């Protein structure tokens, strides 16, 4: 591995032209980005901000108008580099006529995986994404979320060093979303680098070490999640339930010092609550024709050797997702506790799930917290242009 940088872009620019070669859309402008090895990097931005375009340039699916990009120290189109990358496009573009197992075998063969390794990986991944029971069904008959799971499985088939995920959780149920987040955390612990592109902020917040926010094809800010989100001048205390007397004593102490004080029981995140209900249903063996939550993320990871003590522990525990909840909750304690709950709640309450509108609302909230809301007026005008719609 060359140096500490997994992905580096230098003044990367993409201008889309029309048929006559006239410039129409400045999709990415002068983007310089560095993703370090073994880092979960969140790539954020509203629709049409240039996230996907950047990823496509990184992967050689689009040619940069100006600037250049290095992936794992070279060109991503070089087979040696490409064999270390896993890529999940913004939608799972699969061969509808292949079954789930055939699909994974196909991609495994593209990597030239030998017979035994291939079989093992394919079966482990099918179990991991919960599609073992429907492995022989054509993927054309799958729901969007199930197709997403196969898409994720194909991105992992080569045990990649660098995983590029474009909207990995779109179309997934909360269990799948949660599994992907667990997987990302687990992969990061195993030394992988992950570039996560999303506008679902709750997802990004839970797993990313560093984030960059893109708007109008330009980098608006980047940095460590904790540092960016910390509210200055406030602290939070969490305790077990206390007798009313103790609480009022504490209140007195704080008010003597001129501080403000609020008491409320900490809320469970809706995600956690949802997981609990589904697990109960599964424990009662209720049948489903959809995807199964098997909690076998760890099994896939173990196949690639490198035993890790944490992962080993997780294998023993059937309730892996619940165990993995802990690091997330602690993060919440340090940051804003209530807001992410509302985000998840909103997502779950609306049946139609139009991710675009929902995603933009929390987006604005986060922006308020960003210390540097420098939005370039010209860029904004560009974006208002209707030809700019879509994330291209």
């Amino acid at each position, binding site marked *: 591995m060359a140096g500490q940088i997994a992905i580096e872009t230098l003044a990367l620019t993409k201008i*889309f032209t029309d048929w006559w070669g006239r410039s129409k859309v400045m999709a990415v402008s002068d983007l310089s980005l560095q993703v370090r090895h073994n880092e979960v990097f969140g790539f954020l931005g509203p629709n049409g901000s240039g996230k996907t375009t950047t990823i*496509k340039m990184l*992967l*050689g*699916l*689009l*040619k940069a108008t100006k600037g250049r990009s290095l992936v794992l120290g070279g060109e*991503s*189109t070089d*087979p*040696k580099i*490409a*064999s270390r*990358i896993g*890529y999940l*496009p913004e*939608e799972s*573009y*699969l*061969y509808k*006529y*292949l079954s789930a197992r*055939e699909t994974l075998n*196909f*991609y495994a*063969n*593209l*990597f*030239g*995986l030998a017979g035994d390794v291939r079989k093992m990986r394919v079966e482990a991944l099918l179990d991991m994404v919960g599609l073992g029971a429907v492995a022989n069904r054509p993927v054309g008959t799958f729901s969007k979320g199930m197709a997403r799971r196969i*898409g994720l499985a*194909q991105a992992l088939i*080569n045990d990649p060093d660098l995983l590029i995920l474009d909207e990995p959780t779109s179309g997934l149920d909360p269990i799948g979303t949660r599994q992907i987040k667990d997987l990302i955390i687990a992969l990061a612990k195993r030394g992988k680098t992950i570039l996560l592109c999303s506008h679902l902020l709750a997802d990004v917040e839970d797993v990313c070490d560093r984030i960059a926010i893109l708007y109008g094809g330009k980098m608006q800010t980047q940095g460590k999640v904790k540092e960016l989100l910390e509210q200055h001048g406030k602290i939070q205390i969490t305790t077990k339930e206390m007798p009313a007397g103790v609480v009022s004593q504490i209140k007195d102490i704080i008010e003597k010092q001129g501080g403000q004080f609020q008491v409320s029981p900490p809320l469970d995140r809706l995600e956690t609550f949802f997981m609990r209900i589904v697990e109960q249903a599964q424990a009662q063996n209720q049948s489903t024709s959809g995807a199964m939550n098997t909690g076998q993320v760890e099994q896939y990871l173990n196949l690639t050797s490198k035993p890790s003590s944490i992962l080993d522990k997780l294998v023993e525990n059937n309730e892996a997702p619940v165990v993995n909840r802990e690091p997330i909750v602690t993060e919440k304690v340090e940051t804003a506790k209530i807001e992410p709950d509302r985000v998840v709640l909103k997502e779950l309450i609306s049946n139609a799930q139009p991710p675009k509108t929902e995603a933009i609302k929390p987006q604005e909230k986060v922006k308020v917290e960003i210390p540097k809301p420098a939005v370039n007026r010209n860029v904004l005008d560009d974006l208002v242009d209707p030809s700019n719609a879509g994330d*291209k």
Partner: protein
Amino acid sequence: MPALWAIAKNTIAQAVRMKVAAIFIVLLLILLPLMSVIVTGDGSVKGKLQTFVGYGLSLTSLLLCLLTIIISTYSLSSDIKYKQIWTVVTKPVRRWQVMLGKLLGIIILDFVLLAGFASIIYGLTMLMPRLSHAGPDEMVQLENEFFTARASVKPLIPDVRNEVEEAFSKMQDQGNLPQGMTPLQVRQQLYQQKMLEKQAVPPGQAIAWQFQDVAVFDPNQYIFIRFKYDVSVNPPNMSVYGRWIIGDDRQLAASGSSLKTPIYAPPPQSDSIRTVHELAVPADAVVDGYLGLAFQNLPANNTVVIFPTEDGLEVLYKAGSFQGNFIRAVAVIFIRLVFLAMLGVSLAAWLSFPVAILVCLVIFAMGSMSTFIFESFDALEGSGSVAYTLILKPALNLLPQFDKFAPADFLIKGQYLSLASVLGQAGVMIGIQGAIVLIVGIVIFRFKEMAKVTV
């Protein structure tokens, strides 16, 4: 290369599950046996077989060509349109491998389908004579004229240059040279006139030809005189009454009386005009590859008999087996399919499916009537168009000429199809034309922006 193979396998799966292949397969499976039952030809077993093999192979060729065009233009262009290509080219696979994988898959599919249908046609061809109630004569004729692979020799071209020069100088002396014609044009006209005279036999007169390189390898076999009469005035019953003499005529001049090799003179016979006929003669008439042939136009005909220069007269002899010929004929169809697959995949790399298939079909149609197209464009050249000579003509050289080399015709005529000519076809269609088309496609695909939105 596991990646190449994986893409090939995926392409086959796509074609097989696309239903269009199934439709073509079912169609052929129904039509071929049905055809073997209902074809009649000219009523004889031979005619029936000729019609069946001719139509059967042509139909198989046509349907598989269409199938190849559809699959080859669809496979890659749909991958690009529906974006599955994104997760393929971002894997450790070179783009040319993607194209070659697609091509390989289509070629394998074509090979399997063609082998299957050719076997069915072959099996039915072998079965049909047994099911018919043909007499022994008909069976012999079948064996000699259909279940064989015969090479053909045309008569030596008579040298008429001196006669042309004589006639030319005579015209010059008499001042009869036509106005507005160059000497070359006059000579060409005279040449054609003299050649026609050499092939024309007035009533009551005879004409002789010499053949060389008649490579008979078994003197116990038969050779076949294939001829077609043309006439100056149509006889009442539309047929010509003529006498044929076949053998080594050189020995007549040399010794006079005793013959070392036989000279055959069958009784005079009547044959319809403007139709191809065959006369079977024992092969021992040929001496060291030499054969003499004479025809007498009997006075009763009262018309001049002309042997057309194109297909008026040739000698056929057995040069190979029907089986060998059949396999080579099928190989010619396979070469076509490979070319079309190369063309389709190459076009699909940069054109959308509807455009690519349209271009492919146009080229297929043009290739199927290339003789006509070349002739019409040659007329353009006469008018001295620079654009034609510089641009269109080189491009036309890339056009495959399917019609110039119709494999079914060889089987219908029982004509020997040499391996050399099959390999020559493969060299031109796959090695040159197909390769150029494919390389252009690969280069375009190499630099294509896969994720570019085209509206």
